[in-house]
Each structure stands twice: as structure tokens, then as C-alpha cells.
């Protein structure tokens, strides 16, 4: 792996010679402004990068990205890594205090919210350079309410059903294309003494995946977006429809979901106690045994109503600039570098659990499984970000998540109450 990384960097250095000349020139200007550096052609720009990648693999992957960038540009980037969850929780204070120039973040409501509040840097000029390298769906996901871009996608990962090929082949289960077929295969599994659908909701958010997919398959992607923005009401027959459909699926989802974390549920799939598991592709991180990992396959959420399967839930992670970082060319160039295949390959060389987003990224190293995941995303007409990224955070965590947990346990949901809470919460923004 290390050898590969070095080769990659050397290649970058050669290929990107032209671009880096520009980078060095700009860096020299910056350096002479700050007066801290030797100046001249060897001068370097500096920037800081706040990373939420506290897990070992993503941490190493971001380090690889930064060092690839440093080699190419001669700029110096200091990485400050914080714990993933606390980074997320303190983001408002972080952005108002003394943030790093660049930082890791997500597409969706939270990105647009901070853009609207003027706490992050406009990078439309970066997009002028890298725009052709992304699909329009990804560009849209990086754009704020004002039509400017604030975000550069690094990778995303699709949500769908994961299962063990060997179990399905042995018992003769068929991959369901429709909701009815899904219920049929789940029924068979139950008769065979297997938990049909592994499920975990101790952390509150995993149930959003089932809700989002049923909602998008029944009411369409646009309804999902409008519901997340509360342009559509919760007490409508359309939302009721989602829960009525879910009720048909509920008997086949693991009844002990309320006390399980997603890792424990993944274990049930790995141990062949459960037949399939609806989760993001990060579920594969849980299968450390290579044989088990090779046995995992994927199918997209089946079609429910007229909408077919044109929407996929594939949350996007990437980088943004803070307000202060917007004037730092070294940080800006880091984002531009991430928008190239070379940048994303540097990251992917270390963390292979996700799908690269740049069009010119070299995907020849993808396994058949990864190709399948990537294909689902590139074939999709619409990419959603997951309810807790697309909607107001308080709405997701404090209102919908507990309501879904109640629904899982009792089979009933009070949509009028959810609507009344949504009205109050969205009016505060």
C-alpha cells in the first residue's frame, strides 16, 4: 500500500507539473505577503485543515490526500483531527470561533444552512475549474440556496440491501425487484428460522433509511426534498401511505432493533442469523473476515409504486472552506485538488469503503462489488442525502427519530403531532 502511495504521488508530481507551477506562483505571492517564508520560487503557502476523520482508516486516507497535495503544490497543510461526533456537535461554535481554512463536512441541509448564514466560503471559482469533473446531481448537492457552490464532494456511499450470497444461493432466495417480492422472500426466511431483515435503531438514525426509501419509492424524490424542507406537511395521506406500507414490512424486521447498534445488527448478517440488512455500504467495514466480505452482495431498494428505482440514498462527504479559509489560496487549491481524479485516488488508495465521485477518477481498481455500488449511484437520476442530512437537524434527531422508534415498537404514529412540532421548529430557523 505504501509503495503504491509513493508511486501515485510521483506520478501526480509529473502529471501535475503544469498545474503546480501555477500553484507555486500563487503560493509565492501568499508567502511574500506573510513574510514568514524564504520567499522566491521555493516559497510555500500554508493552510490548516480541520478533519473529523478520527477513525484510523479515514484518518490515514486524509493524510494521504494532504501529502499528495503537498507534493504536487509545494504548499503546506496542517491537519487538525477531532473526534467525529464532537466535531459535528461543536460545528456552530467551531465556525464562529477560529476555524481551520478547510474542513470536512457533508452535503445537504447543514451545508446549505451554514452557507446561508455566511459562515463558510464561496468556492464557485473552484467549481469553474472542477465542474466538468462531476455529474449535475453532485454539483446540485454542492450548491447553496443562493446558487453558489460551497462544497467539494470526496466520496459517497449508497444505501441498499446487503446480503450473503452463499445463504441466498443455498436456500434459493431470489433478489426482489418489487416490494411484494421483498415481502415474499422475507416470509420464506421467517419460515426458515432466519430474521429476514436485520435492523438496529438504538442510535435513532438508522430507521430513517427505511423511511426515506419507502417515501421516495412511494411519493418520489421531489416529495422527499419538500418534506425535508417542510414545504410538504407531515399530516398528509402521502406520509400516511409510507407508514401503512412500512407496517407490512415491520413483522420481518428484527424485533430487538430498539436495543441494537448498527454494528451489532451487521454482526447478525455476518453470522447468517439475518437474511439481509438495509444500510449504507459502510456496513462492509464490519466484516473483517475476508471470506465473509467476499460473500457480501448488494441489491437496491425494490420498487414500491410508480416511481421505480430512480432515486438512491447516497450521502456525500467532502470538504468546505470556512469564511476565513476562502481567502487562503493554499486551502482553496486543496479543494480543487480533491475535485480531481488524482486527489480522490490518493484518498481511495487508503479508504476503499466508499465510491469516488470525480468523473476522471481511475476506477480500474474497483472490485466487482464496488463497481456495482458505484453503478447504482451513477445510474440514479436523483441522489438523496439521508433524512438527518437533508432535513433540519433538530427535526431529524429530536422529532422524527424518536417517533420512528415508537413506530417500530408500537406500529402506530401520530402524524398530526409530528406536523405540529415541525411547524414550530422550522419557524425558528
Amino acid at each position: 500500500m505504501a509503495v503504491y502511495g509513493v508511486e501515485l504521488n510521483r506520478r501526480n508530481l509529473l502529471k501535475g507539473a503544469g498545474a503546480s507551477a501555477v500553484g507555486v506562483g500563487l503560493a509565492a505571492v501568499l508567502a511574500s505577503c506573510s513574510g514568514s517564508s524564504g520567499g522566491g520560487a521555493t516559497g510555500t503557502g500554508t493552510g490548516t485543515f480541520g478533519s473529523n476523520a478520527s477513525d484510523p482508516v479515514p484518518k490515514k486516507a486524509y493524510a494521504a490526500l494532504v501529502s499528495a497535495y503537498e507534493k504536487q503544490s509545494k504548499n503546506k497543510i496542517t491537519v487538525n483531527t477531532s473526534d467525529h461526533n464532537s466535531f459535528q456537535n461543536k460545528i456552530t461554535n467551531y465556525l464562529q470561533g477560529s476555524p481551520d481554512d478547510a474542513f470536512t463536512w457533508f452535503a445537504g441541509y447543514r451545508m446549505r444552512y451554514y452557507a446561508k448564514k455566511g459562515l463558510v466560503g464561496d468556492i464557485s471559482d473552484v467549481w469553474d475549474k472542477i465542474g466538468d469533473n462531476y455529474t449535475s446531481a453532485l454539483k446540485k448537492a454542492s450548491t447553496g440556496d443562493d446558487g453558489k457552490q460551497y462544497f467539494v464532494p470526496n466520496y459517497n456511499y449508497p444505501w441498499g440491501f446487503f446480503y450473503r450470497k452463499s445463504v441466498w444461493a443455498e436456500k434459493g432466495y431470489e433478489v426482489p425487484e418489487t416490494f411484494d417480492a421483498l415481502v415474499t422472500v422475507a416470509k420464506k426466511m421467517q419460515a426458515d428460522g432466519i430474521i429476514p431483515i436485520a435492523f438496529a435503531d438504538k442510535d435513532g438514525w438508522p430507521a430513517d433509511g427505511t423511511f426515506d426509501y419507502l417515501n421516495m419509492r412511494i411519493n418520489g424524490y421531489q416529495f422527499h426534498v419538500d418534506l425535508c424542507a417542510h414545504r410538504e406537511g407531515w399530516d398528509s395521506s402521502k406520509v400516511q401511505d409510507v407508514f401503512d406500507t412500512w407496517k407490512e414490512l415491520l413483522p420481518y424486521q428484527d424485533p430487538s432493533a430498539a436495543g441494537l447498534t448498527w454494528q451489532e445488527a451487521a454482526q447478525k448478517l455476518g453470522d447468517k442469523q439475518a437474511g439481509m440488512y438495509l444500510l449504507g455500504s459502510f456496513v462492509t467495514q464490519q466484516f473483517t473476515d475476508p471470506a465473509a466480505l467476499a460473500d457480501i452482495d448488494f441489491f437496491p431498494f425494490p420498487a414500491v409504486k410508480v416511481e421505480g428505482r430512480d432515486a438512491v440514498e447516497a450521502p456525500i462527504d467532502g470538504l468546505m472552506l470556512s469564511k476565513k479559509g476562502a481567502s487562503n489560496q493554499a486551502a482553496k487549491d486543496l479543494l480543487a485538488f480533491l475535485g480531481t481524479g488524482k486527489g480522490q485516488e490518493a484518498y481511495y488508495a487508503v479508504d476503499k469503503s466508499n465510491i469516488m465521485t470525480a468523473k476522471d477518477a481511475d476506477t480500474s481498481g474497483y472490485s466487482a462489488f464496488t463497481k456495482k455500488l458505484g453503478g447504482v449511484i451513477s445510474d440514479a437520476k436523483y441522489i438523496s442525502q439521508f433524512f438527518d442530512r437533508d432535513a433540519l437537524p433538530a427535526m431529524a434527531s429530536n422529532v422524527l427519530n424518536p417517533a420512528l422508534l415508537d413506530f417500530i415498537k408500537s406500529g402506530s404514529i401520530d402524524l398530526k403531532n409530528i406536523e405540529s412540532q415541525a411547524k414550530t421548529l422550522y419557524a425558528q430557523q
Partner: protein
Amino acid sequence: MTDQLSFPAARAPRSPVPRRRLRQLSRRDKVVLGLMIGIPTLIQAVLVWIPTLASFLLSFMKWDGLSLTSFQWNGLTNYNFALNQSPQFWPAVLHNVVWLLFLAVVGTPLGLLLAVLLDGKIRGSRVYQSIFFMPVMLSVALIGIIWQLMYSQDNGLINNVLGTAGTSRAVDWFGDSSVNLWAALIAATWRHAGYIMILYLAGLKGVDPSIKEAASLDGANGRQTFFQIVFPAMAATNVIIVVITIIESLRAFDIVYVINRGTNGLELISVLVVQYLVGETQVIGIGSAFAIVLLVISLVPIVFYLSRTFRTKE
């Protein structure tokens, strides 16, 4: 008595002296006194009164927490949300009441019992004291992990001892909302009892042994001696213990937050405050309204108890 009778007479000639002294306070004395009163007052104001007042004002406003120009009056909307719309509020109140009753009926008496037992001359008393006090010194995250090892559905000690682990009969102690409050209360009691034990041990040491001797000379048995002589003699400790028990149960937060962030049957008012005030899910007006509701609820028993205590003392 004679002293008291002669007092007014003696007072008259003396009174000018302290008065003159008061006037004679030098500039330096005034500065020192001013600092000694001013600094604690300032700390009190900055840490207690100003935040309380700010929370009170914010609970009637909407504010995004970002710019200082975006305050807007919001009337009683936040309170309407907290008390009527939020489905978690009333369960949270109920859970806080259960928490208080459980600590008052089980946790605190258990701590008292431990203190009385360990105050006697038993071998290894110090060792037991350390063992029972240890949970108080552990961080809550660690307590969460320890009890996770006990309660875990498939790998936990309890279900393995019961022989139900891995079967469908295994109780999910933290995940099943009909039992997890009690599971959390046992973990909380484990910690609370050690705390109370240490306070009562100190209290028991402060009781004059001669009154115990006098009681036994008068023919009182152990139980009578404790309940009628020793326990009332610890009045000062008892006030502290009652207040601590109430405060501990109203601010109960950490254990449920470690278990499952205070959801799924473990809702508490403090959790609602945190949910709406901390992190990305922040809605400052609503969080402040929850905080004020918690403040008012906390004031009722504390004011009632303290005013009663001070009245009887006077």
C-alpha cells in the same frame, strides 16, 4: 440570666466605640471589603444570575445562536412546544419523579445502611468503604461500559447467569423500554449509595459518642439509639442528604445519556434541555424553555425544604 438583664445598661456606654470604629474604616479597609464582597458577587452574577436571566429571556424568543441582531420575540410558542407538542416531555417528567422516589426510597437508605454498618467495628471496614465509594470516583462513561457488560442482551453477565443469553427469552435490559429505566436506576443507585455512604460516615463520626453511651446506660437498644438519638443528632447531614438526593434526581442525566442518549424509555427533562441546546440540533428558544421548566420544578422542593428547615431552626 443576670448577664442578659444587665446587658442594656452595659450597652449604652459601649455603643459609641464600634460606631467610631466603623467610621474609622480606612480607604484600604473599604477597598478590601469591597473586593471581598464584590468578587464573590460578581462570580455569582456571572455564573448564576446572568445565565439564568438570559435563559429566561431566551425562552420567549427565537434566535439562531449566530448573530446578535437576530433576536425575535416568540411569545409562548416555545413553552407550548415544550409542554404540549413535544411527546417526550410528560414521560420525562414521570421518569424524573420515578428517579426521585427510587433514590429516596432505595438509594439513600441503602447508603445510610452501608454507613451504619461500616461505622461499626468490623474487620476490613476501610476496604469495604473504598469498594462502595469507588463508583463515585469512576467517570460516567466507564460506569456506562461496566453496566453494559452486565446488561448486554447476548453477552451480558446477567443474562448469562440467568441462562437466557442467546435465546429469544433474553431480556434486553437497556433496549426494552419497559425495563430500561429500572436498569438505569440500579446503575444510578450503585453510584448514589456510595456517595451518601461517605457523607453519612462523616456525619456519624461527628456524633458525640457520649450521647450514645448515655442512651445505652438508659437502656435503649441499638435500634432505638440509632433512630431516636443518633439520626436526629445528624440533622445537619440529613438536610444536605435530602437536598443532594433531590438535586441528583432532577439533574440525572449522564447515565441515561451514556446508555442511549436518553431515548426509548429513558427520557429525562435534562436530556430534553441538552437535545435542544447542544450541538447541531440546537433550537435555543425551545431548549431555554425546557431549562426554565426544569428550573421551576427544581425550585419547588428545594425552596419548600430549605424554608421549612430554616423556620424550625429559628
